[in-house]
């Protein structure tokens, strides 16, 4: 097969591989990681807005409090929470803990449930501002 036609690795999406909890959580770890990386751009904006003065800060605050800003902030929070819990799962795997198929499913469901509950709780706790 010519190089250009080979499936990209990892080719877990598409016709080659059946979707399952483990592979979906794996790709979600990447997606949330990428989202967090993009969020660092907004962190940079925020810090420089604080540094620049009241006017720059109010522009950032208006954006944060807008609908799109709130959606992005909620998405960033969920990404952080999920990446945190699933990251702990990765660290356990690195210590050769929980590597059986049964264990990866159990911890996978735990990560999903914890992420949803923690995201909503933190959002409400922080006042969703």
């Amino acid at each position: 097969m010519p190089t250009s036609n080979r499936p990209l690795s990892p080719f877990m999406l598409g016709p080659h591989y059946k979707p399952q909890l483990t592979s979906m959580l794996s790709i979600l770890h990447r997606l949330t990681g990428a989202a967090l990386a993009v969020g660092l751009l907004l962190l940079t904006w925020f810090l420089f807005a604080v540094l620049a003065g009241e006017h720059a800060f109010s522009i950032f605050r208006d954006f944060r409090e807008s609908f799109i800003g709130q959606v992005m902030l909620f998405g960033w929070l969920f990404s952080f929470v999920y990446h945190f819990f699933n990251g702990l799962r990765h660290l356990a795997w690195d210590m050769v803990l929980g590597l059986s198929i049964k264990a990866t499913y159990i911890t996978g469901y735990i990560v999903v449930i914890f992420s949803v509950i923690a995201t909503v709780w933190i959002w409400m706790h922080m006042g969703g501002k």
Partner: protein
Amino acid sequence: MQGNTKHWLVTRLTSLPLAVLFIYFITQGEYLTTRVRMEFISWLQKPFVTGAALIFVICAFWHGKLGMDEIIIDYVPSKKTQAFSLFLNKIIFLVLGVACLYAVYAISFSKV
């Protein structure tokens, strides 16, 4: 230590402070989301918070750079484009990371 082993290890090492600081910053939510600029500044100027913020910035940008490396290596097949993407990735995270370190430093140690 080989390059890939170091990559793997640094990803883990930077994740540990991030996990701890994530929990800490959640407890500080009222300051992080404050509508009052001076309230955020006086919070950030506390020595412990300044230190936490500096460590967070270093680890977050480093960890983010390493993670994006993985994604680029997996999904950019052409060696040439891949090498350029990795270079660009390094520059972007380095510049933004250093900029954020400066911002935290400048906010914390000035009488804004």
